[in-house]
């Protein structure tokens, strides 16, 4: 009662969350799947930021990575294929105090949920959106995804994918009101952690694309990336993601890139010669939709009733 426990100690200071508080069911992803490491990073970050598990909601669509909420000890919403973003936006609309995390994949977000992707970026509601991009449909067993490279052999394109892959970075950076775009690879955990931390601290929709291993259905593609650090370009800047030596050593190609510079971010995203890693764009001042959608939440029932009666008056004869 009144925040006090029976022994008169104030409860609020008693709660310290450990990693165990964020543990859910045992993760059922394949051994070697990139999802495991990201899950660990999220749990570590929640612990470090001391976010109460009950005020955290993990929303996902359908796919391997969308199983993530089941493995977190928070509230979760494992929704429909492609529909994580509208559900997450709805959660946030009248409960802006909740800490919302979205787990979605390349198929879930860039294919069946593509329309919602564009609109969620535009609404810019305060949430972390993690796209687990392994360039393949894993749960349904090896179909071409929007980010499968041209020529990749899959069950739907056994002679090789026909079209060039989507570039999710250029699309996202082209959407009005975009406020945070980062890209990391799952096999560099410090960078994943820093990206999620910056994303979590940003007020707005933080789009974090995590290029990620699928050892079962897309191994050749990822092996090739992993074995050639020169394919990547590490973005560094005071206002970017902090990078320690374990990051800089792994990615020798580096570019000083100011994440407040949108045209520079477009250039980096459009440059097909290297895969950028780090923070491409950050605008902390973009308006958030929940600032509009949550209006009137503080009204008492009595005030609502009075207002309703005034509305009825206008139609009364």
């Amino acid at each position, binding site marked *: 009662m009144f925040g006090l426990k029976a022994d008169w100690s104030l409860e609020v200071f008693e709660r310290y969350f450990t990693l165990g508080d964020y543990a*859910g*069911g045992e993760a059922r992803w394949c051994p070697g799947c990139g999802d495991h490491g990201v899950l660990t990073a999220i749990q570590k970050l929640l612990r470090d930021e001391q976010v*109460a*598990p*009950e*005020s955290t*909601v*993990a*929303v996902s669509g359908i796919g391997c990575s969308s199983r993530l*909420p*089941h493995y*977190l*000890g*928070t*509230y*979760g*919403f*494992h*929704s*429909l294929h492609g*529909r994580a*973003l*509208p*559900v*997450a*936006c*709805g*959660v946030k*609309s*009248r*409960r802006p*105090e*909740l800490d919302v995390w979205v787990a979605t994949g390349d198929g879930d977000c860039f294919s069946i949920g593509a*329309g*919602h992707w*564009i*609109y969620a970026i535009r609404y810019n509601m305060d949430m972390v959106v993690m796209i687990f991009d392994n360039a393949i449909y894993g749960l349904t067993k090896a179909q071409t995804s929007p980010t499968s490279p041209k020529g990749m052999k899959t069950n739907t394109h056994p002679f090789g994918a026909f079209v060039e892959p989507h570039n999710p970075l250029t699309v996202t950076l082209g959407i009005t009101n975009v406020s945070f775009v980062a890209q990391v690879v799952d096999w560099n955990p410090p960078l994943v952690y820093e990206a999620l931390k910056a994303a979590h601290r940003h007020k707005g929709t933080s789009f974090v694309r995590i290029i990620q291993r699928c050892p079962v259905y897309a191994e050749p593609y990822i092996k090739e990336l992993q074995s050639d650090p020169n394919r990547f370009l590490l973005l560094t800047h005071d206002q970017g993601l902090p990078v320690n030596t374990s990051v800089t050593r792994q990615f020798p190609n580096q570019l000083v890139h100011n994440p407040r510079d949108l045209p520079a971010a477009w250039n980096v995203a459009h440059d097909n010669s290297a895969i950028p890693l780090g923070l491409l764009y950050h605008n902390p001042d973009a308006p958030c939709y929940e600032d*509009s*959608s*949550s*209006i*009137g*939440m*503080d*009204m008492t*029932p*009595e*005030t*609502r*009733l009075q*207002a*309703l*009666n*005034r*509305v*009825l008056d*206008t*139609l*009364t*004869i």
Partner: protein
Amino acid sequence: MANGETAGAVQLREHIVEIVSDSGEGAQKAGQTFGTVCAKMGNGVWTVEIIPAEIQPPARSPAGASGIRIRLATNVVTNMGDEADLVVAFNEQVLYSRIANGAYREGTKLLLEKKWQEDPQPEIREQYAKAIEEFKTNGLEVHELAIEKACLIHTNNPRRGKNMFVLGMLCRIYNRDLNMARAEIANTFKRKGEKIITANQKLFDAGCAFAEEHIPELCYVVPPRSEADLGGRKFLVSNGNQAVGLGVMAAGMELVSMYPITPATSASHYLADVFHNTGGFVHQAEDEIAAIGFAIGASFAGKTACTITSGPGIALKTEMIGLAVMAEIPLVIVDVQRGGPSTGLPTKVEQGDLLAALYGATGDAPKIVLAAATIEECLHYVILARRLAEAFRIPVILLTDANLATGVQPYPRPDVSTQWFAPPLDQSDWDPEIPPYHWDVNTGLSPRPIPGMRDGNYILTGLAHTKYSKVAYDADSNQRGCEMRSRKLTSFAATLKPPQVHGDPEGDLLIVGWGSTLGAIEEAVDRVRAQGQKVSSLHLRFLSPMEPGLKAIFERFRKVMTIEINYSDDPKVTSGETRRLAQLAWLLRAHTCMEIDCWSVVYGHPLQPGLIHKVIDGRLANLTENA
């Protein structure tokens, strides 16, 4: 001149008036104002818009008929009635489609703009002359009037101003309270400023004087409902979509998430205008799926939301509705039905979504389905829907239709209360011993943890799951989940009472209806009963689950049939086992294992009592032949 009842005015119990014009000539505004004045004077009123299917149909085309019908009476009016008694038309061509629809009878008084007889284009002059001949041959009582010419004295744009002139004519003809009408005009144009108000009031006055001078013989009085009937109550005047909006606010809901679709959107327009007053928000989503997804997200987070749509929107939302059923998320879905399938008849009425509402999902997806039969019920059933959704942790579909959406009627103003509102967000600690689906095996009911509740953490999923919300593919879990979700309907059904029969509880023929056809069916039944026939009617409000005791009621009649606005095969063409039935008839057959007949049409019109009367006479004749 206010309330100046002319000596010799003809006393009437009721009259049906139409104003028909090209689109954009303001006929609907004039008619709504006339209807409001009649309602304020204590008459029973029903107004219904005549809507062309296109936004900008060509001028002077029969298909472009736009306008409004106002039925005013000394009694409560529950439907649009049959043929109009008096019609004002701005050109003769638009009348053809109304005539084809059987909107007029012999003796209907036609007040027709006559400027076309002097039109510079000879073919228009010819069309006009030909039409006048035809109308007269058909028995219409034609009064050719120079309406626009008279307006020109007061405005240089008679196309915009003549609607208020016509309002003046009607108020004179029906001896309305002219000061009340002037005040109503001021109210209608209050956002446009004093100058516009004065200009329109001037046109109104000119219209009054014009009617007095040119058609003094058209002079009627329709006395108001009695004081006893009105009972000193306050009345609201609104259409069904506004009533839905009022219901959303009176239910204490905070969020409507929608995507534009005809004829549902005007409910959201209305809410967008007023919802902020009660602390609510209208979210216009990027598509129908996102609209319901957003609502489901808010509901999951403890703020039960509403999504308002029409047929094609329901089709798109189907997968999400299934999710709400599966994961037991409270949600209110309003379906303002229009003609289908596919894009169908966007602006026209149909009761074609009943089976889609009940069964339009994969797997077994039990949900509550209600149908509002009146505009007043559009308001109250939204409140009921929110309560049921939360109590039974289930999506509730409320069916209305284009007829209710655009019909305007006075109905008692509800005495709203904070008790009707959603309870405040519960953020108390959850007992960790209680699983998120702690199903009571008898009722299927379970309490619901809300994000923010400590120790209530669970992962909602659309996959088959256990009571712990753990994904489970095993035989027992799936069987149990389906049982529990189904049992909620059984336990809700147990709280319902058998429906009331309109008329005697036994007889030759029982008409069963649902939704907006209530007024027309009961009016028709009253007419046949007045002729001594043993006919009664029954109107269902709950379609899933259905109200109890139907079989017992049906067994007291020699024949039971549904009357609906959806498709069924004509029994003269396709009979027996191959005949496809109207939607409620299918349901009732399955529900009662009885022989249920049906009659239905998909004309896109509201049903009219005269047509139903004929149908009943036909079925009674068959009954006598077969006896």
